[in-house]
């Protein structure tokens, strides 16, 4: 009986965490105007999201032991995110193209390269994360790392320009009228090789 009580108590807490995280993510979407709800709902959702975040100890300092222990549990149980896949709407995707400049003036184009379609899905996810991050420094650092991996494959390259863009998907009716997928330029970064890949020079 005692074992059952412990199991039931653990599961209550576990389920509460799952629901709270999912609810918080849903409320975040409403609060940021990404849903069909009218804008009058935003304030309420923001407040409710704040309460959900507080319940999940997300308002505590990052170094707080309670928050650290809870975060560890969430990670090991795989419940640290909500479940809004492709919701409320399917976002566009991103594309990263490297322009490789050789010492003889030759220019080649290269994409981030992996060997399997399973890894390809992961790289596409990485580009989405680069595109969506609100932190310019993190975006630049990630692009720099990808450029470095290209450099290892082409050590003779003198400079690399990384061009990051978003994919604009045509609607069904646009597609029927002949419009196809297009790209919007977002960022470009120039990297030059001295002794090792140098600090990037960002061009927006």
């Amino acid at each position: 009986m005692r074992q059952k009580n412990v199991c039931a108590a653990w599961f209550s807490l576990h389920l509460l965490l799952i629901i709270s995280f999912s609810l918080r993510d849903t409320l975040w979407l409403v609060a940021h105007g990404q849903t069909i709800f009218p804008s009058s709902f935003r304030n309420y959702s923001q407040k409710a999201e704040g309460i959900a975040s507080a319940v999940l100890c997300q308002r505590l300092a990052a170094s707080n032991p309670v928050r650290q222990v809870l975060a560890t549990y969430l990670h090991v149980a795989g419940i640290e995110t909500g479940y809004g896949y492709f919701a409320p709407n399917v976002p566009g995707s991103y594309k990263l193209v490297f322009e490789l400049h050789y010492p003889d003036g030759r220019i080649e184009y290269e994409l981030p390269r992996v060997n399997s379609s399973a890894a390809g899905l992961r790289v596409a996810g990485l580009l989405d994360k680069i595109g969506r991050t609100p932190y310019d420094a993190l975006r630049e650092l990630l692009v720099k790392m990808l450029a470095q991996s290209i450099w290892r494959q082409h050590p003779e390259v003198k400079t690399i320009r990384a061009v990051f863009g978003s994919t604009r998907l045509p609607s069904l009716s646009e597609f029927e009228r002949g419009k196809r997928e297009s790209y919007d330029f977002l960022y470009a970064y120039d990297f030059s090789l001295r002794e090792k890949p140098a600090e990037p020079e960002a061009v927006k």
Partner: protein
Amino acid sequence: MRALKERLFEFLFPTESDAWLSILRVGLGFQITLYSLSLRNDWNHLFAGADSGLVNRDLAEALLSIESRFAPRLGWLATLGAHVGLREETVLSILWICLLVAGCGLIAGIFSRTSAILAWFLHLCAAKSGGFVSYGVDNFMTIGLFYLMLSPLPDRYALDWQLRKSQPEDSPLLGFWRRVLQLHLCATYFFSGLTKCLGSGWWDGSNVWRALIRPPFNVIDPEMLVRWKYLFPVAGVFICLLEIGYPFFIWSDKTRKIWLICICAMHAGIGFMMGMYLFALIMIILNVAAFGPGLVRLQRESTSLRPQEAVA
């Protein structure tokens, strides 16, 4: 109050056979094996640290440390390997082999508990250290492996049972862990369906179209998809209703079978039409393990009853 508690405990701790656990163990064994094999040529490239990885693993681990310093990561194992003179590349290769062995161990049911813990730990390390390259499939694999390693292994179809005469634990705990998985799936689908319902694109089918033409999920030629355009709104609404209705219709004997088939068909469709094979597989495994065995048992019972009814 006591009666309520008793009813709650009856629900949470039903007497169960271990058929669901066998499905979960074998299914996750296949999932881990396919996961390892699918990444065999990119494993070191995806998860290496400075100077050889696609994205430096140290960055993902540093960001993870802000959230949790104790979440498992590959960096710990690489450091441990460095202490005994192993290069990072060697450590990563050993870990890949261990993960593959753990997957095969789960399929066969050899050292079931050890294999489950090893698979959970190594996959978690890879998912956390490769945070920038992980996606939904990693979440659901962690969830499935977490429940599997805590469940009362081995099940009767495991080689452990046959060879080492290990006996499974009591059935109320078997029932409890199945309930945990069932309720988790209900929460997952409900919120997934709810957030989809809040987007206009699922009601008019435009999100179905976008999902199918969005790189890298554009497996099918859009020219071919256009011919099926009238089905997109139906498919969008169907997906919303299927997901949000899951926690309400999956429990009833009358609707469970059709709901389970539809959900599995939806995931199979996502797998084949969008190239997300591993994601489709893990979702089908979790669903069939959680809600499948009862259906098979019900069918067998009704089949076995027929002769007796005829005699009566």
